[in-house]
């Protein structure tokens, strides 16, 4: 989203303008409610209007998000939100693209796209409601479940090491990497605002507890453990320190902005976008001159 775009906006929006047609069907107490509310507040505070924003999700509890958010929305296949979102952003780079989903959707089945969107630095914001469990399928381990966790698919305890989305995104080239906590909306909103304003791929991995199926990592688990990087004087340009802090788990778990660096975005490097606006809005017929050029190459 460009700075000028914000300045041009005349009609003021409020968070209510981003309230969707239907209310969420999440379980009472689900962390996702706070994420939804926070995003509505942040997007309106940025002066954006619903038609300027698109939310794109995959499948899972948190992926029902676009239905609860009044903006353009795409509820795509399980794991494919980042691929679809890349197509949307590249075809219309003037839109503010927000991708929402869960840990299984993004880090499991969609892991390949997560890897590659990071290195491509596609200018969009990815909000992962990480509850360390598969909820919509009634409770199985996810790629972020802790070792030893007992679920319906691991009745004797999980033996697989969880992946770390923060270090993964940093290593793969993401330019804005943060961790939020749905129990601290004010902090989360601060991260969201910066992430959306950042030019490049922004990940916010959000601890968003599943109160129904994950009784290990609930609010009681996180509340005494979370520490804010902002309180520690962390330098978000220092990727090594960012990785060290992101790997900490136990009595102290960091939330906040781990990495914030600048690198050219994919759309900024696309020669076709140097002039002429979004490709989705252009005349599509081939000109006489273009036709002659092409046929001449065949002779």
């Amino acid at each position, binding site marked *: 989203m460009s700075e000028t775009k914000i300045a041009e906006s005349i009609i003021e929006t409020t968070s209510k303008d981003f309230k969707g047609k239907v209310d969420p069907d999440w379980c009472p107490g689900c962390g996702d409610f706070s994420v939804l509310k926070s995003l509505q507040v942040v997007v309106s505070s940025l002066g954006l209007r619903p038609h300027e924003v698109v939310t794109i999700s995959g499948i899972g509890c948190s992926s029902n998000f676009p239905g609860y958010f009044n903006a353009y929305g795409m*509820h795509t296949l399980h794991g494919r939100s980042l691929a679809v979102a890349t*197509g949307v952003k590249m075809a219309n780079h003037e839109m503010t693209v927000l991708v929402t989903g869960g840990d299984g959707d993004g880090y499991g089945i969609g892991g390949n796209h997560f890897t590659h969107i990071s290195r491509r630095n596609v200018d969009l914001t990815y909000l992962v409601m990480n509850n360390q469990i598969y909820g919509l399928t009634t409770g199985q381990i996810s790629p972020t479940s802790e070792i030893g966790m007992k679920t319906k698919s691991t009745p004797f305890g999980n033996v697989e090491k969880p992946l770390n989305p923060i270090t993964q995104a940093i290593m793969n080239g993401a330019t804005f990497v943060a961790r939020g906590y749905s129990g601290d909306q004010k902090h989360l909103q601060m991260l969201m605002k910066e992430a959306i304003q950042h030019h490049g791929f922004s990940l916010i991995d959000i601890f968003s507890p599943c109160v129904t199926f994950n009784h290990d990592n609930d609010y009681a688990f996180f509340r005494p453990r979370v520490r804010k990087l902002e309180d520690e004087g962390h330098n978000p340009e220092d990727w090594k320190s960012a990785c060290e802090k992101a790997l900490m788990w136990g009595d102290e778990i960091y939330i906040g902005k781990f990495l914030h660096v600048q690198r050219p975005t994919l759309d900024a490097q696309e020669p076709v976008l140097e002039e002429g606006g979004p490709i989705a809005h252009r005349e599509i017929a081939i000109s006489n001159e273009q036709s002659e050029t092409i046929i001449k190459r065949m002779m």
Partner: protein
Amino acid sequence: MKDAKFDFALAIGGAAGQGVATPGNILARMFVRRGLHIHAYNAYQSIIRGGHILLTIRVADVELPCHGDKIDLLMCLNQDTLDRHLQILGPGGRAIYNSDKLEPSEPPEGVTLVPIPVGELTDNNPNKLMQNTAFIGVTTALMGIDFEVLGEALTEVFKRKGQDVIDLNTGTAKAAFDYTHANFEIFPDPVPSGDEPLAVWSGNDALAMGGAAAGVKFYAAYPMSPATGVLHWMANNARDLDIMVRQIEDEIGVANIVIGAAHAGARAMCATSGGGFALMTEAIGSAAMMEIPVVYINVMRAGPSTGVPTKTEQGDLWQMLGASQGDFQRFIVAPKNALDAFNTIPEVFNLCDAAQCPGIVLSDLLISEGTFSVPAKEINMQPEINRGELITEPRVSNDDGLADPATREGGGYKRYKDTENGVSPRAILGLEGYVHVVSTDEHDEDGVLISDEFTNPHKRQMMVEKRARKFESVVDRIAPPELEGPADADVTLLGWGSTWGVIHEACKQLSNAGIIANHLPVKWIVPLYGDEIEEILGRSKRVIIVENNQSGQFARYLRSETGFKANGHIRKYDGEPFMPHHIVAGVQEQLANETEIYVPRHEIMV
């Protein structure tokens, strides 16, 4: 197509890395510059160095439907080529080889050996590619073409490498040219000239150009033989045509990224082969559910699984029919040749835009990787473009009142409005006044999910019927298949897709052999003009279905759609394409009631 007065086939054989392509390109360039038509097929293997390649270039004074039956001139770049193919040459055939190194077996009767002392003619130049240049000189001489024509071609091909390289190659070619004239008889038929120079393309070029002509602004791909040529054409020409081209991490990503671009409003396309297509299938169903028009190209190769990556087959028909879970509509079309593929892409885009659904174009290695001449005037880069009911302008109205849920932005717009013909006007992303959500879950007219809670059987039925109805509303724009050849025939040959050319030529050969055959080529798989096909076949004395697979995929499909059971079948599934005489032999055996399923045995070991 007219009968040829001049019809000549040249084959160049060698190992990968020996430079088979360069003499092929130089000779092809000489032919099309003269206005002669070419049809080339390259039999190769999935190896970068080694193995065996046989490039067959057929050249004639008329348009050519296929690469034919014969080899008149075999250029052997190595002993392996001589060993494999000398014995299949017919009377009048000749084989060029390096007599310093290669030892031929006893040639068949009527075949002339053309031994060339390459060392002497190249001053023992250690560069092994000089042999190829010498052989081009020999070929030019044997075909009775003036040396100036070759000289010009060599100058053009090597101009980037500097005058020394041009002089070296021209000198070598001339020495070989003169040696040939001094020592061998040239072919009796002089090489004619056509009216004007012709253009050259591959089927993959044609598919890509069809996309460009249709107004594709976003192309994504993951490399996969034999579809990679589409990506290469797009990448080479993208900047001149304002097309965004992206290589993606896998075909799942490709299939979904084009959906994103198409939903944003761009015409978007991708191409792959069967394995990649298998990964794309879930996305194709999602395009159907979200009602987003996208064109997917599958260039078939021999399967299953990784199969034979560099060989052709028509084995993916049922994969296309059954691509993705659920019961939904998709166009499936199998063009007959490169020019048809070029013209089909814009047509499919118009249909997909009209019906807001996915379309599948089915090519195969034979079309996609073949090299063909085409008259430039037949290439229309500005075909009709019709985007259907697409909303591209914002609306600023009282609807835009915000805050009040009843009239908030997008209020009143129903993306999936249940209309009479099933087509709901589609707003591209980002327009004021049309805010909406699309979903891979089943949804109501306004996009709200009816899948997870408050499922409603009546609404579900309505949406299923709406999607089916919009498809039906556009199918009458598609031309039904037409019988080619005499109405009254001994046998009707039915083929689909790329077999058009070889069946076309086989019908002529059958006629020469006293058997009257006509030809029903089927291009549109879905929608299938079942009633029309049944009516045509009902008038036939005997129907034989020709296809490049083992199980008779089209025969089973036709029977499932119409109940029609053919009298016989000609099938080939060894990786190599049909040659006309294979079909002629199959028809003759079936007319003699020797078999119902004829499977030719490929003579050329490649």
